[in-house]
């Protein structure tokens, strides 16, 4: 089972929901797919961390074998390989690693060599198996790291995924294959605008979903009205509470200090399972 926690807008509480839900359920795989700014590990005090590099095959040109015919540069849709008058220059950061240049080279002068674009960390915290990716600073492509994180999905177990903000390609990469999407928002015009955007995507993907309103009470009721009109279930409301905000600032998941919330998150898990079965 894969439950993905997403939102359109950043900073609405995705990580808070993912971590508190994981701690309440227990014995889950928690995958932090926000590889640009992973935060789950700042809330869970990780034990021994095992780290692996993520490599992306990138072309290397044998300049001696190369005849400067220009076929690779012409083929590359990403302008990552440039054929000059004297040599071929590769711009590894913008290479999407499609392998096309190597395929079209008539001289077989192109080889692909793995280039480090980030890391994957794995650790165990209480009964949670935590996996998080980390995009190397200066590298633009998050998607290959997300793919690497998702290799740790356990088909038999419960997987909770923390998605990056927005609705662009890294978010879709995270959401695909999910059984249920939890969309976390806040009751403000920005929250509503970005929630509506996320809902459009989720509908396209055809994945059952529900909404959690975080910091309930700080803004207006437009998110609730939107959910009612669009028949999207509101799974939970987390009130704005200075204690929750302060615990978060110190890196403490609030279920650890406010145990009554464990019951709420277990209830949330039951509602999700119910909605998943309705969808089938």
């Amino acid at each position: 089972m894969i439950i993905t926690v997403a939102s359109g807008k950043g900073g609405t509480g995705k990580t808070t929901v993912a971590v508190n839900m994981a701690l309440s359920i227990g014995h889950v795989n928690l995958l932090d797919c926000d590889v640009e700014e992973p935060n789950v590990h700042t809330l869970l005090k990780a034990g021994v961390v095992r780290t692996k590099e993520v490599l992306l095959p990138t072309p290397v040109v044998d300049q001696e074998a190369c005849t400067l015919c220009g076929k690779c540069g012409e083929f590359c849709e990403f302008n990552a390989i440039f054929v000059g008058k004297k040599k071929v220059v590769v711009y590894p950061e913008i290479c999407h690693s499609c392998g096309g240049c190597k395929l079209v080279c008539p001289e077989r002068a192109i080889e692909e060599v793995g280039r480090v674009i980030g890391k994957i960390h794995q650790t165990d915290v209480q009964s949670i198996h935590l996996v998080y990716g980390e995009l190397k600073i200066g590298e633009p492509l998050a998607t290959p790291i997300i793919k690497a994180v998702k290799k740790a999905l356990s088909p038999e177990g419960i997987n909770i995924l923390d998605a990056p903000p927005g609705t662009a390609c890294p978010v879709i990469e995270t959401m695909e294959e999910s059984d249920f999407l939890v969309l976390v928002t806040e009751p403000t015009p920005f929250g509503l605008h970005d929630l509506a955007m996320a809902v459009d995507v989720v509908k396209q993907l055809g994945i059952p979903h529900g909404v959690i309103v975080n910091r309930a009470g700080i803004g207006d009721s437009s998110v609730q009205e939107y959910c009612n009109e669009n028949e999207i279930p509101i799974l939970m409301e987390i009130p704005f509470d200075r204690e929750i905000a302060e615990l978060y600032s110190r890196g403490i998941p609030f279920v650890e200090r406010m145990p009554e919330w464990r019951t709420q998150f277990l209830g949330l898990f039951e509602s999700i399972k119910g909605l998943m079965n309705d969808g089938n």
Partner: protein
Amino acid sequence: MATEIAIISGKGGTGKTTFSAAFAALAETIVIADCDVDAPDMHILLQPDVKQTLEFQSSKVATIDKDLCTECGICSENCRFGAAHAPEINAIACEGCGVCAYLCPEKAITMKDRVSGILHSSETRFGPMSHAKLLPGEGNSGKLVTDVRRQAQEVAKERGIDRILIDGSPGIGCPVIATVTGISLGVIVTEPTMSGIHDMNRVAELLGRFRVPAAVIVNKYDLNLENTEKIRKYCDENGLLLLGNVPFDSSMTKSMVAAKTYPEYAPNHEITDLMRIMWSRIGDIL
């Protein structure tokens, strides 16, 4: 070229757009650029009057002619993005590289232009605005960000405006790199939380890598004074200018609900005074 200042954060939801819109309201003459093309929110506060809209085409997508396809499987084997499942293409996963079309023995695959977003040129009560919207699931956000910045520069040149204020996106990936390359100042809005600090460090390092001077605003500083002190130290040690600490105040959310910039909503509030001081310090740096 007009000078560009970008408001970024690493972590989402720290207040980038609130501060960007406030500075737009306080600035005398400025061009506004919303480079959060994935989840743009600036228009909610600035209500731009859209003058021109262009389609943004930067990539291609594969399509298979089912009549010609023999389902030999060569495309699926060679697609590195898991997009080709002959006779179907998953358009969301397709990155438009063209490998499948090149290899198809039946020439059943063609690459077509895809519209990945729209680019707007608008007017607001604070000056001209360049903004865009990436369509859901699209890549190439970096190229669209570059187009938003290019359009802002063109407008600035036409009108003789020497400063551009950019609202950036969260993260450190493709759109953020496209936002900060070559700008004059990156203003990082952070919050005194463990994740806020973690993400600020990463985005500050990114700015360093691109040799962009950095300044920091601590939003909701009174939520955790110990962490606020850590941020001050970090700024000292790493040569980042601390522009100011802004307290948590419910009027910030209320201004957003009223769809107003903060200085318009609360012109006499101490936070507006703070914002004015920070904006003038930004002017001093440039």
